[in-house]
């Protein structure tokens, strides 16, 4: 499990940090080299733990001073107890998970709240590439159709509908393009979606 494009990550880091309370416990699924957790440590003084499957990224986490558990997200989060974290983050990884619904459920079991970011397939540049007859390739989705790890791409509206149907309460959301919030027609003009959610039962 790995995070898509590196250069773009910073934009969603700031959006995520804005929602995270000072000194909280954060689990980052598909944490890559641990940059997000490091960022949150610096900005929000969090206690963090990452989950990553890739050897090189696990090593990078240790070099970054970030605690990491090497495991396959597809196995679920069996190593983690209910509500053992304040937030569970899935940053630019959900589109590459085989069972996206299960991972969202697991996030809300292990964490009190979840934060997910994903490339918006409905972004106009993606639509344009499809209209021209090609699978979209962009900063957020830097893969060709034949080598992409992305199996569950969705649009902002798809995700909203998904949450509504499963009684997942969206607490906050942002849609970004080149790091800037998009308010007008987010499903068309937004490249990257950032959602903060909790379970309906918590209402």
């Amino acid at each position: 499990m790995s995070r898509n494009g590196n250069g773009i990550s910073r934009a969603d880091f700031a959006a995520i940090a804005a929602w995270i309370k000072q000194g909280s416990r954060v689990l980052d699924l598909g944490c890559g080299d641990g940059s997000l957790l490091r960022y949150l440590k610096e900005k929000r003084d969090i206690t963090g733990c990452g989950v990553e499957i890739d050897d090189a990224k696990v090593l990078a986490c240790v070099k970054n001073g970030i605690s990491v558990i090497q495991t396959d997200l597809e196995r679920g989060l069996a190593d983690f107890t209910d509500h053992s974290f304040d937030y569970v983050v899935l940053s630019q990884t959900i589109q590459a998970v085989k069972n996206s619904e299960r991972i969202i459920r697991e996030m809300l079991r292990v964490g009190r709240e979840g934060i997910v970011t994903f490339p918006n397939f409905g972004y106009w540049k993606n639509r344009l590439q499809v209209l021209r007859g090609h699978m979209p390739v962009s900063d957020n989705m830097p893969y060709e159709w034949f080598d992409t790890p992305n199996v569950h791409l969705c649009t902002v509206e798809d995700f909203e509908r998904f949450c509504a149907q499963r009684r997942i309460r969206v607490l906050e959301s942002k849609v970004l393009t080149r790091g800037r919030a998009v308010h007008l027609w987010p499903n068309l003009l937004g490249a990257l979606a950032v959602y903060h959610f909790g379970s309906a039962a918590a209402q």
Partner: protein
Amino acid sequence: MDGTVSERSVGLVTPQRARFDEPLRLKSGVVLDGYDLVYETYGTLDAQASNAVLVCHALNASHHVAGRYADDPDNVGWWDNMIGPGKPLDTNRFFVIGVNNLGGCHGSTGPRTINAKTGKPWGGDFPIVTVEDWVAAQARLADRLGIERFAAVMGGSLGAMQALAWTIQYPERLRHALVIACTPKLSAQNIAFNEVARQAIITDPDFHEGHYQEHGATPKRGLRVARMVGHITYLSDDEMASKFGRQLKHGKLNYSFDTEFEIESYLRHQGNKFAEYFDANTYLRITKVLDYFDPAFDHGGNLTQALAPAQAAFLVISFTTDWRFSPERSREIVKALLDNRRDVTYAEIDAPHGHDAFLLDDARYHRLVAAYFERIAQELAA
């Protein structure tokens, strides 16, 4: 162990001996009046005594962790590939201690030692010891060396059990625990293999109830078989297949009970080598140490509760082909630590060598340990 010394060796080393006269009450209830521990150190203890790392040994190893002896240059420390200047555990930065555990046969008080009460070797009368007893004895050595808190306690296999026990028994006395190729307790299968090894020794006619020294005998046949059985469990099926397969010793089948296959020859060689230097009473006791290790036992089997006192940060490492202490067993430890909200990093190294992988020079494994010690060094400097 590959037995080579790289340029980055700690060089010539000399074992030291510490005498302890304060009695030690063992977990079994038996009291050991006094004892010696033999140990080695590499590197320099800093002024705050903050950079000490205790390296705990596994089944057949000793205090001789790194470097070599002037009078026995082929005797290279058992973890020399891990420990030395510029190595993952860098002796330019850390003060490293290796200690031969109680009941051992490399100089610390054990079955070969003369029992002051009888004037004869302890032999079969040497008490049964446990991981917890070893850790208690190690803690006294730490006191003696002026080390209040270790930067890390580290070990593989049975050595890792000691590191884990340290975090429970003396939680405030270590910053980090490196728990490699470990298990929170032996499985029935693990105990079964140990029992076969013990029976091989005990039923050897030269065993004499453990008092073979007085009889001028050594139960070598039993030790050989015990080591052969043990060795099978250290290697993976794939590793054995690729190393030996069904290769013939003499190029053709002889339809006899002599060694036909290379694997037989290899096991016999390992068994013979071992029987020459290792003490049977020590071997028996160390297999018992393994069997009895189960920190969750006193907590109704709840490992999370057992590890609740731990304060250290952990690096837990397992190896994919280790079927003796499989990755699932390490995950039990990781889960219990996470349940206790401990700082834990877990890595599963994809290595073909089975349980023995923790002793081998695998680049991914060593890079990870190096990076973790770098983190420890940075914490100490902060």
